[in-house]
């Protein structure tokens, strides 16, 4: 996870987004423990209260849950939901980008070529379901 301390987006929301993305991308799997507040705060170089707030937000959303004395865990049902949600968001973003490209005059043949070239670069993090 990376955060941008110069962003207009509050850091706690960047952490919320980061954890959501990491769960969707299988970095954190259902039932696995998340880093402690202290560890993540030091790792990201941010105030521990900010991490605490992000975890509270994620707990409220139901993506993670606390186990007494053991810290925060990714919830099984939530992990699947996060994956579905992330894919929906990614598909919408892709659609928007394609529409914008067409609207600005990029030829369909060129767009098709671009799309195929992206699919042929598995090293860039493209996952097949």
């Amino acid at each position, binding site marked *: 996870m990376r955060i941008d301390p110069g962003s207009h987006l*509050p*850091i*706690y929301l960047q952490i919320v987004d980061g954890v959501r993305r990491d769960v969707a991308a299988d970095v954190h799997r259902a039932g696995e423990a998340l880093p402690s507040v202290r560890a993540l705060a030091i790792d990201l170089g941010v105030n521990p209260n900010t991490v605490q707030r992000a975890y509270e937000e994620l707990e409220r959303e139901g993506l993670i849950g606390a186990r007494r004395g053991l810290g925060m865990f990714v919830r099984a049902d939530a992990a699947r939901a996060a994956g579905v949600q992330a894919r929906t968001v990614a598909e919408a973003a892709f659609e928007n980008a394609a529409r914008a490209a067409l609207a600005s005059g990029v030829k369909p043949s060129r767009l098709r070529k671009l799309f195929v070239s992206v699919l042929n670069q598995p090293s860039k993090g493209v996952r097949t379901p």
Partner: protein
Amino acid sequence: MNRASHPVVELRGLSKSFGDTRAVRELNLSIPAGMVYGLIGPNGAGKSTTIKVIMGGLRATSGSVRVAGLDPIADAGKVKPIVGYVPEVHHICRWMRAGEAVRFCRGLYPTWNDSLCDSLLDQFGIERSKKVRHLSKGTLVKLALTLALSHEPELLVMDEPTSGLDPMIREELMDGVLRNMCDGRRTVLFSSHTLSDVQRLADRIGIIGSGELLVDLPVDELLRSTKLVRAVLCDGRLPAACPSGTIFERVDRREWSLTIRDYSPDRLEELRSANPVEHVEVCDLTLEEIFKAYVRGRRATA
């Protein structure tokens, strides 16, 4: 006395003048236990003066100053032991060796924690045998931080601790402060020009301009509630009236941009109804953009 009932730092109507110059005017500030407060402002805005008054190094011209409910000058004997201070200009004796400076400070504080001090010296890679005057700027700041933290103060005050340091040393210093923050419920007040550091560390931000506290808000709330409105003016027309909460405004050809505090859609209605505008767009702002808008806005009205 029960300290828990007091804010750790409390300023009420604080003013400080130097001759005819009013460096700080009617400043109110309250920092509860456990909060990290970041003070930002342009050079000469009154940040250092405010910090020196809190540290008891300067006497307020008027208003009251309390640290843990005590007067930092009259009760200096009780305040000094519970405060750690990293000043803008370091006052560690230059002829001492680092280890001697440590022993000197150790004698001043009954709560000195030797193992904490040793671990900080090791973490920062400070050689005890080196003369203070031979230390690099970065190492000197790290030594100052070690000395300020080793008696485990309730309140840590830092006046521009990272100014003039390279990014690696800055990171190391911030990491040291952060680890310390994580391990105890420490209250921190610091000033800085590095806004990304302030955004990372502070719970709450104060913006000082021309000696006045212009903003005193949680970081997230400041980012959420301050917006940039960009309006396109109708041909040949000029803005008539700024909506309430405008901090700074500027017209460039047909674009009228306004930075607005406590933004809500009502403000947009206010703007549309009173001005000849065609198109209006609302944008989020970074801390740096918000800071500049406040400072420029303050200069424009001053």
